[in-house]
């Protein structure tokens, strides 16, 4: 089983549209939406939810005003500015609270309890393209990295159990905790970039991140014709750094139309230049993974 994660650094470059196409093109696959803040893959795969589970996130400190003696030790212990003195008692700002429990241990009269937070839900669903594991993080919650790890693990176990060929993971934007959780253990990261100054800047950071975690990468340039000169800059940068550009996708309103229709673009408009470019990208993904397999076999 091969695990593929689609990342971008910068948001809104077309990760979900590409993974939706891959989920249509790949045989024998399981999908995971690891962008739990903004889980959009379900909007184009039309899942039927088969199982729903609550996700308990971190804990938040609660101070019992009846027990609190106002000694101030909790506020001193808190490094997240989550505890303040209000109206003769100490209160916790649940948004700022890290759940680190430093105040709990600092309190001499056991006036502090840690309350587990219901941070969201995760789902096992069935789509026409295969099983989909996705989640919904309640707005403003912490621990999105843990929820990402959880849905990915569920999808991975299913793929291993059923001897599926591919695990396709739709990643979040950025380079921080949820991205690291989404990319860990991947055989290949497909990075979607737009030919813009921001796109080039963010590509360098996300390539640095996957290299740091020793995940191989391919680049796909989306809306490549919006700025051919920047697209060339990306190709040159990739060539210098030994990263293959697997495909260049043109700008086309058909991508938005497919999204509105709730379909992968390769199903909605199979003959469009966009779909042909995405098919080419998928072929490079398959070939790259096959190449990795051969190298692994040789080294054994």
């Amino acid at each position, binding site marked *: 089983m091969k695990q593929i994660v689609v990342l*971008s*650094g*910068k*948001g*809104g470059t077309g990760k979900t549209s590409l993974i939706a196409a891959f989920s249509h093109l790949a045989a024998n696959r399981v999908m995971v939406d690891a962008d*739990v*803040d*903004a*889980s*959009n893959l379900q*909007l184009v795969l039309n899942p039927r939810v088969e199982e729903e589970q609550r996700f308990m996130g*971190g*804990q938040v400190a609660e101070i019992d005003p009846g027990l609190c003696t106002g000694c101030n030790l909790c506020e001193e*212990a808190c*490094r997240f*500015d989550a505890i303040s003195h209000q109206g003769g008692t100490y209160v916790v700002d649940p*948004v*700022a609270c*890290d*759940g*680190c*429990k*430093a105040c709990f*241990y*600092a309190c001499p009269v056991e006036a502090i309890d840690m309350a587990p937070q219901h941070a969201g839900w995760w789902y096992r669903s069935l789509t026409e393209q295969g099983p989909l594991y996705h989640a919904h*993080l309640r*707005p*403003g*919650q*912490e621990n*999105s*990295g843990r929820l990402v790890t959880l849905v990915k693990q569920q999808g991975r176990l299913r793929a291993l159990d059923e001897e599926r060929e591919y695990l396709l993971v739709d990643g*979040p*934007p*950025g*380079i*921080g*905790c949820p*991205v690291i959780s989404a990319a860990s253990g991947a055989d290949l990261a497909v990075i979607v970039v*737009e*030919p*813009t*100054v*921001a*796109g080039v*800047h*963010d590509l360098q*950071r996300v390539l*640095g*991140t996957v290299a*740091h975690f020793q995940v191989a990468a391919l680049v796909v340039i989306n*809306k490549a014709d919006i*700025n051919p000169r*920047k697209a060339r800059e990306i190709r040159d940068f990739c060539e210098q750094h030994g990263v293959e550009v697997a495909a260049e996708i043109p*700008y086309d*309103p058909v991508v*938005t139309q497919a*999204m*509105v229709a*709730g379909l992968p673009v390769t199903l909605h408009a199979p003959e469009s230049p966009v779909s042909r470019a995405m098919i080419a990208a998928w072929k490079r993904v398959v070939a790259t993974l096959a190449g990795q397999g051969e190298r692994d076999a040789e080294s054994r």
Partner: protein
Amino acid sequence: MKIAIASGKGGTGKTTVSINLALALAAAKLPVQVVDCDVEEPNAALFLHPELKERAGVDLLIPQVDAEACDLCGVCSEVCQSNAIVTLAKRVLVFPELCHGCGSCTANCPHGAISEVPRRIGEVERGNAGAIHFAQGRLNVGEALAVPVVRRLREWLRDDCTVLIDAPPGASCPMVEAIRGADFVLLVTEPTPFGLHDLKGAAEVARELGMPLGVVINRADIGDAGVEQWCAREEIPVLLRIPFDRRIAEAYSEGIPLLTARPELAPVFLDLQRAIGAILEAQA
């Protein structure tokens, strides 16, 4: 007035709105600060080209165990909620990349065997782009925790001008850390099913924090009517609609702000700020 510019979905145009609002205010001789809180992928500087005069590292304090003083009692591992310090049979192992720097292990070690050392996870910088005050944070590549960098950056928010906080995408902790304490949340979206789905999550955060909010619809003529209908139903004001224009997209791709390419649009952004001011006044 502090305005947080957020979005839920990435790539909807947060930075475009932030920098053009700033340029319009600066051109009208109004004092303004742009604070780029998208510390995982900070992009505002690519458009404003600020001169950065001051830089400060962002460090977490992580534990260092004195093996001589440690008797392997295991209290440090017990109190750690991040599994960042593990007591083995013969030594204590620290996993710096898991540590949130809360200080619990150090405070609770019965033998005083733990001291703290700084670990650099990012940096903050500030300066000016012409009349625009500017600050940004940058998480180091390979680091997981964006929130401490955003928290450090918040110390640089000014009180003497309009502050535009360019928030990270999403609706979880880094986004919340960026927007909390602002007077108003401006949510930038696009009129597509993805844009609408993620707008709902971001709006829910703003409402849970009790913050007034408004919407900017970017590329307003693509997609469908879902965002408009939802905003009308939820009584969330749509304060600005920016049409899709390939020339805008091309200028953006070169790092040229909308108002540099189309200066005649400056009044549109001044109206946006006035509309936000009016909403806040009506509430007060």
